[in-house]
C-alpha cells in the first residue's frame, strides 16, 4: 500500500466502524431523540386509527365494498403494529420510564382497536357504533398525547 493511500483507508475504516456502531441490536437514543420518536409514533398511530374510523364509517354507510374495507383495515392494523414494535425496541432513556409506559399503552390500545375493527370488517359487521366511538376517543387521546 502506498503511504499516500493510508489516510483514505483509515477514513473508510473509521466510517465503517461508525456505521457498525449505529447498527446495534437495540437503538439507544438520548431523551430528546426518544421524545421525537415517541411523538412521531403517536402521530402515525393516530393516522392509522383515524383511517380505520373513516373506513368503518364509510362501510357502515354502504360507501365501500367488503374487500376494499378489509384491505384498508388490514393495512392500518399492520402499520399500527409496526409503529408499536419500532418504538418498543428503543431503549428508554433515564427519566422517561413513565412516559414510555403511557405511550406504549396508547400504541398497544391502537393496535388492539384497529385489529378489532379489521375483525369486524372481515365478518361484515360495520354497524357497531360503540367501536366507532372508541376509535374516535382513542384518536383524540393520541392527538393530545403527541405534542
Amino acid at each position, binding site marked *: 500500500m502506498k503511504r499516500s493511500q493510508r489516510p483514505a483507508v483509515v477514513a473508510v475504516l473509521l466510517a465503517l466502524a461508525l456505521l457498525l456502531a449505529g447498527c446495534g441490536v437495540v437503538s439507544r437514543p438520548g431523551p430528546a431523540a426518544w421524545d421525537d420518536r415517541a411523538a*412521531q409514533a403517536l*402521530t*402515525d398511530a*393516530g*393516522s392509522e386509527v*383515524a*383511517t380505520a*374510523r*373513516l*373506513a368503518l364509517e*364509510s362501510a357502515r*354507510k*354502504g*360507501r*365501500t*365494498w*367488503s*374487500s*376494499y374495507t*378489509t*384491505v*384498508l383495515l388490514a*393495512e392500518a392494523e399492520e*402499520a399500527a403494529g409496526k409503529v408499536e414494535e419500532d418504538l418498543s425496541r428503543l431503549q428508554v432513556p433515564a427519566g422517561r420510564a413513565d412516559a414510555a409506559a403511557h405511550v406504549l399503552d396508547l400504541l398497544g390500545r391502537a393496535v388492539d382497536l384497529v385489529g378489532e375493527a379489521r375483525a369486524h370488517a372481515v365478518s361484515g359487521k360495520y354497524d357497531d357504533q360503540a367501536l366507532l366511538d372508541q376509535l374516535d376517543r382513542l*384518536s383524540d387521546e393520541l*392527538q393530545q398525547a403527541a405534542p
Partner: protein
Amino acid sequence: MKRYFAVLLGILTAIGGFVDIGDLVTNAQVGARFGTSLVGVVALGVVGICVFAEMSGRIAAVSRRATFDLVRERLGPRMGFLNLVGSMLVTLLTFIAEIGGVALALQLVSSLHHLLIVPFVAAAVWLVLWRAKFSSIENVLGLMGLALIGFAVALWQLGPDWGQLVAGVSPAEKPEGEGWATYAYFAVALFGAAMTPYEVFFFSSGGVEERWTSKDIGVMRANVFIGFPLGGLLSVAIAGCAATVFLPAGVAVETLGQVGLPVAVGIGKIGLAVVVLGFFAATFGAACETGLSTGYSLAQYFGFPWGKFVRPKEAAGFHIILLLATVVAAGVLLTGVDPIMVTEISVVFSAIALPLTYFPILVVANDPDYLGEHVNGPVANALGVFYLVVIAVAALAAIPLMAVTSMGQG
C-alpha cells in the same frame, strides 16, 4: 371530421394517461399533509412537462427520429450514455412502481395479497407489450384513465370550503406543524412526479411509432397544451380530496386504498369503483409506457431496430429488453418491497435525473440540421432555460432534503 376526431381522441388520451402511480400517491400524500399549499408546484411541473414534451414531439415529427437516437448523435456517446443511464434507471424504477401499483389496485377488489397478483400483472404487461398494437395500448388505457375524473366529482360532492381551498394555495398557508425542509422535500417529489423523464421519451418515440410528420405538429401541440394541463387538474383534484378529508382528521397517506377513500366518502361505492378502475388503467397504462420507454432508450442508444411498428422478429433485441425489464420488475416486487415506497423513491430520483433528460432535448431542439425551420423560437428557449434552472435546483436539493427529512418524515 376525421382530423377533429383525432384531435379529440389525442386530448382525451393525454388527460387519461397523464396520471400515474407517482402522481396518485404523491398528490394524495401532499394534500393530506400540506392541504393545497403545494398546488403551485403541480402547475409548475405541468407547464414544464408541456414545454419539453412539445419540443420532443416536434423533434420526432420533423426529424422522424426519437430523442435518444439524436442525443447520442448530436452530443456524442459519452453524453448520450450519461443521459441513457440516468433516465433508464429512473424509468426502470418507475416501471417497478407501476407494476406494483396495478397489483395494489387489484388487491382492493380481490383482497388477495398484492404479492400473489404481481406475477400475473407482470405476465399481462409483457403480453400486451408483445402482442397489442401501439395505438390500442395508448387509446384504450388512456380513455379508461379518464375514470380518475371521479376525484374531481368527489371533490365537488365533498363540498369543501372553496374559499379556504383557494386561499390555501399560497405557500404561506403551509400547516404550522410542518417544517420548511419537509415542505421543500415534497415540492421536489411533486415536481419529479409531474416531470418524470419517461413521459417525453414515450411521447417522442410514440410519435415515431405513429409516423408523425411536420403536418402533425398542430395535433401534437393540441394534445400537449390542452390534454396535459387537464390531466394536471386531476392531480390537483386528488390533492384537494385528500386535503378535504384527511388533513382535518390527521391521516397520513401510506397506501393506495387510502388514496381512494375520499372518493368513497364523497360519492360512494359506484364512484369508488370508477376511481379504482382509473387506478388500474393509470398504472397499467404507465407500466406499458415505462416498459416501452426502457426498450426504446436502450435500443435507440445502441442503434438496433425498435418499436411496435416493426415485426417482433425484426426487433428481437427490443422485445428481449422488454421481457428482461418485466422479469426484473416482478423479481424486485417479489422480494416484498413496498410498491408505495418504490414510488416515493422513484419520484425523488426522477427529480435528480431531470437535467440529464431535459438539457439534451433543449440542445437538439435548437439544431437547424435536425429541425430546419421548426427550431425553438424565443419563447420555447426562454421557457426551456428557465426550466433547466428550476430542474437543476430540484436535482441538487433532492438528496440533501431526502437525508435531512428522512424521506419526508420531518
